[in-house]
């Protein structure tokens, strides 16, 4: 419900169709319904993988069990029920975080993923910090001085940057800084501190932070060119605006004009794109974690593929899918709140 709404309108909207009276509310409901639909589709895909590829009996007892014993177990586990019944059971389990047993780890698959999630999220966090710290000043500079040699160099560099695959950046960084110069460690998370039962952080030790440097730089290199270009383009547009001229005419200090009057107004598109790209970064962690042997979700996922550990594979799919859906839905709703056009036409 919008705060500034007339009392009468609010009253009416409660018993007539809220669609017409309160578009924002309808938009949020529609968006959440879509998110639920997507999660259901993901659950169907996950269930299909489990049924077609996986073998829950093997996940439980391994391969060295007689045929009669397996038949009894699969009857007990309900594997002979009709598929829709099994799917509903899968869904019920998934809602409680139960996605079956990991064949390799002999533990609930969701638990394995959740234990590895902090490593991946710390990496994403560190990369995001680098992106914010680098892309904002560079983007603003390139917008303010488009013809300066340095901005041309930076923009040219960003085209090259887009064309270098993240794993190649990572390998080059390892070769230069770990093998050749020997300044930084090349693989693993280093020393970690246990914060809670499932969260081991590398952010609190010097060794952990050193191990974080190269993976974080590699991961941020994927997104940096995009953000630099985006901030530059938005900033250039803002610089033309009348209120910027007015701010200059008032004699405000230049940095204040740029940051408070200029940059603040580029934030909306930047945050929207940023939210969506956060999901994409999760995808790129699979590559980064492989190169650096970073013990996160992506690394475990690839191991699960090699070992045909279907429960773990499905748990990763559901967990990452859930994260994508939550982030995208939140970004869309926030964007819808700020920009009324979106509510009518859908995204973009």
């Amino acid at each position, binding site marked *: 419900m919008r705060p500034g709404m007339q009392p009468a309108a609010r009253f009416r909207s409660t018993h007539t169709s809220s669609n017409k009276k309160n578009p924002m509310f309808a938009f949020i409901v529609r968006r959440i319904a879509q998110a639920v639909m997507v999660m259901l589709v993901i659950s169907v895909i996950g269930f299909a993988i489990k049924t077609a590829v996986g073998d829950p009996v093997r996940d439980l007892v391994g391969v060295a069990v007689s045929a009669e014993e397996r038949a009894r177990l699969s009857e007990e586990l309900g594997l002979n029920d009709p598929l829709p019944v099994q799917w509903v059971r899968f869904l019920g389990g998934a809602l409680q975080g139960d996605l079956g047993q990991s064949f390799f780890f002999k533990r609930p698959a969701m638990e394995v993923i959740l234990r590895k999630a902090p490593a991946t999220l710390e990496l994403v966090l560190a990369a995001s910090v680098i992106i914010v710290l680098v892309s904002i000043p560079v983007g603003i500079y390139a917008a303010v001085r488009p013809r300066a040699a340095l901005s041309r160099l930076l923009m040219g560099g960003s085209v090259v940057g887009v064309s270098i*695959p993240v794993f190649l950046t990572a390998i080059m960084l390892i*070769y230069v800084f770990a093998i050749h110069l020997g300044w930084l460690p090349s693989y693993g998370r280093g020393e970690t501190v246990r914060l809670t039962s499932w969260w081991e952080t590398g952010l609190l030790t010097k060794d952990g932070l050193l191990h974080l440097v190269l993976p974080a730089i590699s991961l941020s290199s994927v997104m940096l060119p995009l953000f630099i270009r985006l901030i530059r383009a938005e900033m250039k547009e803002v610089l033309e605006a009348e209120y910027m001229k007015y701010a200059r005419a008032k004699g405000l200090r230049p940095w204040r004009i740029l940051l408070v009057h200029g940059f603040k107004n580029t934030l909306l598109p930047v945050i929207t794109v940023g939210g*969506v790209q956060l999901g*994409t970064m*999760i995808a790129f962690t699979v590559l980064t974690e492989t190169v650096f042997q970073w013990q996160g979700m992506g690394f475990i996922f690839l191991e699960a593929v*090699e070992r045909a550990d279907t429960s773990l594979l499905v748990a990763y799919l559901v967990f990452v899918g859930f994260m994508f859906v939550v982030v995208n839905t939140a970004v869309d709703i926030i964007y819808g709140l700020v920009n009324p056009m979106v509510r009518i036409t859908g995204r973009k």
Partner: protein
Amino acid sequence: MALLARLRESYLLHSFLRDPVAVGSFIVVVLLVTAGFLAPVLAPMNPYDPAQIDVMDSELAPAWIDQDSSFLLGTDSQGRDILSTILYGTRVSVLIGLGAVALQAALGIGIGLISGYAGGRVDAVLMRVADVQLSFSTYMVAIFLGAIFQATFGVGRYEQIAVPFLIAVIGLAEWPQYARTVRASVLAEKKKEYVEAARVIGLPSGRIMWRHILPNTMTPVMVISTVQVANAIMSEAALSFIGLGMPVTKPSLGSLIKSGFEYIFSGAWWITLFPGVVLVLLILTINLLGDWMRDFLNPKLYKS
């Protein structure tokens, strides 16, 4: 011949020749692609033929570093000549890139055209699907598809069907890009008078869609196609690098980098570096060509 004459006088050629970056990129792309497809002729050896490989030659440095080495760019761990593996690998990468883009384009153009022309509920459903799929990042979709396929078929069988499979994975992962672009231009074209005229004279909608509207949506399709080839090559390299793409026995540039990475700690940098350089060069020049084409075909954008 008439077509050639038209091309010679066209503004396209004129503006292309005036842009040194575009000409340079074009030359590099053509060179790389031809070299790749002529690999069986150009390559000093056939890296897939066990009879031509000598394990004694393994991990030799490039010719200019190691005087004893007769291999221009060195050899890998199995004694294969890097130059030859790169040539063959480029062929695989380009083939998958082009194939994947063809599939994306076929799917995306078809769906975008139907979605834009039919409108209403069909449009809403198709575009929702495209939106949702795009929100998942094409890499993630490709990685999942790859993982599922590999788990289903098993590694052994998978190696035989790797090329068509990768084309399918990358094609399925990226079609929404095309669908959205085509739909947007169909919506703009649909309102124009020539479409009205075609409808008034009673042409069936299928014909209007394919023969009248489709040709007029080709400009944006051309622009994204160039960039999409670069993206597809990059996706393929990424999939191969994490072991979900081309097997090491029939390597693309990505799997060459993967197999080289294991030896980088022992100082054999050339196994990784040279395929990497070729990959970056290929993607970069295709991207630069795409940028040029976007600027050329979109007169609203002027280079600052």
